[in-house]
């Protein structure tokens, strides 16, 4: 991509330098009179997976959209690879986004493109020097990684919801990102498919040492894939820590959340 060649690359070695890949600083966001995020702060380093849990409408997805720069916070800052996504130039935002993979809640596959074309989409735009055969091989490798060999010529409408999530995941990984944002990767899936997605995320996490944030309602999934869990209520992070830290908490909301799932 032209933009990324013209600018100083964002810091991708945050783990080595000690800087977090994602640094959320006192972020607030309202929609009209509704306060969705109220002073949210946390950090995620490379190799870490933070699961963000909470009730519906507590701003979890908005948080991901702020991190990738699709929405701007009212106050506070979302620093991604050292860049403030609300104030960075269009070129910097573009550069950072090429190092992030985003799995949307409903996969958001391009319905006029085949599975293969969906996964190849970021490569076509950001790896212009890649030959068609190299691109095809790379896409086949990604589809193999997510367990979708033999489905490359199907349209998104012709595959199941779980398979769509896998395609979305392959597309998110196409540019070999250093940050992975997953918005409810197991929502609407049966327990077996959810387990398969969790295993896949764990495998990818081990292979690529990503800094990941997983927004989910699924405590079991969070326990499986996350190194830390942040539980949100009414726009605030109520508690952040390991699953054991959550179990030890005497916060009524935390107990309520855990009792429902376990």
């Amino acid at each position, binding site marked *: *991509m*032209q*933009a990324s060649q013209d600018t100083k690359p964002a810091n991708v070695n945050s783990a080595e330098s000690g800087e977090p890949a994602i640094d959320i600083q006192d972020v607030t966001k309202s929609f009209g009179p509704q306060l969705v995020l109220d002073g949210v702060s946390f950090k995620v380093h490379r190799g870490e997976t933070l699961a963000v849990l909470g009730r519906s409408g507590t701003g979890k997805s908005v948080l991901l*959209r702020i991190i*990738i720069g*699709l929405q701007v916070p009212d106050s506070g800052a979302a620093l991604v690879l050292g860049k403030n996504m609300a104030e960075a130039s269009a070129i910097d*935002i*573009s*550069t950072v*986004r*090429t190092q*992030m993979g*985003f799995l*949307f*809640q*409903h996969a*958001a*596959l*391009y*319905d006029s493109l085949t599975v293969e074309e969906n996964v190849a*989409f*970021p490569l076509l*735009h*950001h790896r*212009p020097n890649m030959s068609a055969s190299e691109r095809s091989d790379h896409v086949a490798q990604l589809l193999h990684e997510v367990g979708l060999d033999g489905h490359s010529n199907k349209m998104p409408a012709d595959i199941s919801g779980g398979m769509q999530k896998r395609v979305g995941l392959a*597309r998110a990984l196409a540019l070999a990102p250093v940050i992975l944002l997953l918005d409810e990767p197991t929502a609407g899936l049966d327990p077996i498919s959810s387990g398969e997605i969790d295993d896949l995320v764990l495998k990818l996490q081990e292979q690529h040492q990503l800094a990941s944030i997983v927004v989910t309602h699924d405590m079991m999934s969070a326990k499986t894939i996350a190194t830390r869990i942040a539980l949100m209520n009414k726009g605030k992070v109520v508690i952040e820590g390991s699953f054991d830290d959550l179990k030890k908490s005497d916060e009524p909301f935390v107990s309520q959340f855990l009792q429902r799932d376990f």
Partner: protein
Amino acid sequence: MSGVPSVTSSVPVRTNPVLDLLSWFGELGIFIWRVLRAAVTPPFEFGEFVRQLDEIGAKSLPLIAAAGSAIGVVLALEARNSLVRFGAKSLLPATVVFSVVTEMGPILTGLIVSGRVGAGIGAELAAMKVTEQIDAIEASSVDPYKLLAATRISACIVALPLLTLAASFCGVFMGWVAATLIEPISLVRFINTGFKGARFSDFLPPTFKTCVYGMIIGTVACFQGMRAKGGAQGVGSAATTSVVLSSLFVILADVILVKVILLLFP
């Protein structure tokens, strides 16, 4: 609703139509600026532009040709009756040629493309918007204004004059067919008589004014599609408003452009 007021109905939504209109034009202005900026910044999306040219131009051709032919036939039959009454039957070829090429062809093409393409673009982009596909494009660090809007608007601008030429050709040809079925006249004589005394300036500006129609149709449809909200209702609403607004603006532009052309090419 069983007479029980819903939560939403008990709180009247107050809107100010004037403010809404100003807000719409403001958002349209910002949208046009973003598209213009995206359109002139490399890399260019030539592949998508060609695909849209096929979608908007080639796939509209059969409908445009049929409509142009019908207009030619109807015009020849109706005009002939009137001209015979006034003893001016010999003016039939010129009446058909001038009517079709200067006004009927361009406005017909504009309105048909508004319906077919305006609805198509509006619905497609609205569906992409509500299913987060446009967000996914942006998250992939690809500019949706360049990939989706600039390509479609450019394709509309290029396709409209070409479609207008097709409509005008079909109109004139079928006008001759209708005329010759009633009273045989050779095609060469029909054309020679029809174009006698005509200048390029009589035909080029009306044909190329459709570039403005194309710009209007593409811009309005992309704008309405990319600002859609909600689910199926939002998609339907975007498609409908795309057609209504683009048709309305095409008609308004026609009135203005006819006057401008008459002033510039007297």
